């Protein structure tokens, strides 16, 4: 028997949702400062309107649903999944008012792509977008990469026991420090430190490459936010091709890899335990999968003969591959070149890389390499069990921050999530084929959306069907939250309809 949700459940969900909306309101004020600094009148008004709407909703929810009760697991998960939808709509308001989007659906696509750190874009005439709107596009990647709830936890919600439930609901099942709030603040500390260093490096490179100093540092900040949070938006419509710079590419590769590393690993590096980099299972698997997928892509590119020089082949192939593997989505080729100039083998290499993703507790999406490692270890254990004598005691272990013995529970969880991702990739591919796109292109774009990558082979554009836009929005949302909180939300809605 399914139990119908009580009014108190709705009140608790509404109250914490209201708190998160109020938290988001403060983030909307940052582009206002940028607008004022660059004397952009109408863009500043766009953000003021969005702030007012968000405040009205936040205050109403807080007032109507006021409660002192704490969240339970179900409520925490629902708050998280709904927060992302609400953030998508509220974040879309200033962008829609900019007049650079064909419809509100396109704007919602853009904000979900930003918050989920995907990087697929439907903006029109990006090269004439205001600084404040452009800054907001990149800031939402930074917020989404850390986690919308983490932002609220760090700054706007003072310690309560339900925090961990929301933290887990946002696909972060690893605590770095014993306290969730401290963990959230550590993630911010790491991000802000790298932000300063990364912006400086990119800004100086930009100036050396001939950009004006204002543009160089503005682009540096935006590119850092999108690269470290493995997002993929860029301030110009050409993506990374705008810069025509090897040094820019090298710096962004470093930032993308830093963003794809587990925050727990960052913590150990920061606290002086540098040996952990070499011992950790994730580092080893990330290196191996990069090598394998790059080999596939490189063989494919060699067959095409488009890049006759080895260095050029490496530069183009490796950049797209790292961008795909870390889930960033920066491109140094035009989207249709994947289909026109690359062959099926090289594109397949990129699809594999996108589907695997980076480390858990990082800003990347996709299956994630720790799960691949666990599944591989489980397979190895089962093979040993078959091949060795029955009496043999088989113990499989791996190093992930500490020595971990392989148990059935994490294997089951890893397999379930992997299966869900494969299902999600397949679902988007089917919808793409339904709308008349070829199989490989549909698979590429679907994997890119569901794994929160952002590489595009050309399907994502303003003329694509609304049904496909909605599908990709769903894929980005589900892929970023790693399913569980979305399944709980669906279960909650089903209980509200069918429950007794």
């Amino acid at each position: 028997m399914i139990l119908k949700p009580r009014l108190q459940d709705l009140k608790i969900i509404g109250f914490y949702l209201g708190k998160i909306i109020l938290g988001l309101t403060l983030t909307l004020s940052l582009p206002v400062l940028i607008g004022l600094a660059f004397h952009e009148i109408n863009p500043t008004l766009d953000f003021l309107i969005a702030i007012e709407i968000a405040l009205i909703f936040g205050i109403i929810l807080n007032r109507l649903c006021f409660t002192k009760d704490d969240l339970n697991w179900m409520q925490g998960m629902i708050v998280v999944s709904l927060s992302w939808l609400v953030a998508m709509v509220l974040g879309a308001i200033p962008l829609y008012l900019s007049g650079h989007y064909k419809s509100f659906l396109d704007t919602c696509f853009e904000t979900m792509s930003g918050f989920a750190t995907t990087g697929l874009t439907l903006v029109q005439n990006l090269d004439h977008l205001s600084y404040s709107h452009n800054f907001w596009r990149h800031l939402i990647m930074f917020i989404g990469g850390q986690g919308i709830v983490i932002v609220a936890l760090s700054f706007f919600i003072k310690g309560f026991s339900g925090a961990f439930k929301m933290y887990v609901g946002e696909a972060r099942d690893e605590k770095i420090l014993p306290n969730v709030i401290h963990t959230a603040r550590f993630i911010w500390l790491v991000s802000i430190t790298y932000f300063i260093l990364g912006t400086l490096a990119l800004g100086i490179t930009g100036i050396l490459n001939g950009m004006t100093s204002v543009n160089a540092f503005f682009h540096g900040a935006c590119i850092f936010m999108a690269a470290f949070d493995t997002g993929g938006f860029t301030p110009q419509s050409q993506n990374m091709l705008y810069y025509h710079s090897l040094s820019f590419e090298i710096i962004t590769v470093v930032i993308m890899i830093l963003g794809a590393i587990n925050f727990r690993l960052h913590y150990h590096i920061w606290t002086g335990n540098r040996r952990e980099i070499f011992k950790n299972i994730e580092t080893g698997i990330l290196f191996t999968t990069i090598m394998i997928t790059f080999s596939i892509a490189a063989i494919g590119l060699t067959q095409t003969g488009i890049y006759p020089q080895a260095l050029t082949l490496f530069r183009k192939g490796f950049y797209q591959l790292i961008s795909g593997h870390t889930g960033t989505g920066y491109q140094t080729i035009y989207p249709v070149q994947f289909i026109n100039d690359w062959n099926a083998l090289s594109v397949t290499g990129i699809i594999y890389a996108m589907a695997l993703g980076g480390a858990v507790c990082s800003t990347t999406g996709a299956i994630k390499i720790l799960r691949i490692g666990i599944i591989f270890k489980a397979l190895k254990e089962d093979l040993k069990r078959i091949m060795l004598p029955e009496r043999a005691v088989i113990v499989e272990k791996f190093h992930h921050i500490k020595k971990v013995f392989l148990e059935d529970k994490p294997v089951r969880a890893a397999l379930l999530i992997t299966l869900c991702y494969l299902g999600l990739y397949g679902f988007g591919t089917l919808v793409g084929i339904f709308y008349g796109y070829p199989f490989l292109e549909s698979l590429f774009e679907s994997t890119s959306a569901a794994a929160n990558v952002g590489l595009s082979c050309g399907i994502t554009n303003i003329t694509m069907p609304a049904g496909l836009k909605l599908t990709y929005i769903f894929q980005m949302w589900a892929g970023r939250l790693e399913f569980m909180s979305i399944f709980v939300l669906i279960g909650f809605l089903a209980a509200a309809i069918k429950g007794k």
Partner: protein
Amino acid sequence: MIKNQKLKYRADSVERIVFSFLLFLSAIRSTLSAKQCYPLNAKIPFFLLLSFFIFHFSLTCFAQPISSTELINKAKQYDGKTVVYEGEVIGDVMKRGDYAWVNLNDDKNVLGVWIPRDLTKEILFTGNYKTKGDWIEITGIFQRACNQHGGDLDIHAQTIKKIIPGRPLQEKLNPAKRDFAFILLVILIILFFACRLPLNVNRKR
């Protein structure tokens, strides 16, 4: 105004083609009439004239600007060929030694153009939120995967011509947005006090 200028430019191009075509027809006519009146060696200048106009006609056609979509989609076909491309200069003109990178937006895509530095002197406006960049036409060699620039799809420009000068864009306050923001502010203030008031009463009690 810019649209009108663009149309005028296109009309000029069409005019050139039509003029060439008329010359071509008159050359045929001259050749045919020469066949009837003059011996074979006298026809040679007419054939030369005919060939010249055919050549001129084909050149005029080739000199039409090609869209970025065409260049990207048929990159293999245009690889290594001299093309004419036009678009608005956007972002920064990035100077690198004796050359510079200019990114040209033809309203569909943006292509990078590698251009001798002294040719960029003509560029006065680059497009962004507050500026409409210069609309320029370049002639250069198109590269699908340029070896010199790490495999980038680009054009190495040889000539540059400003078609439409850029200009600063005046931003005017949108009164509808201003009014909407004001109405929301009033609602917000009312809501704020409406929420506060009962709490104060409760505290007093």
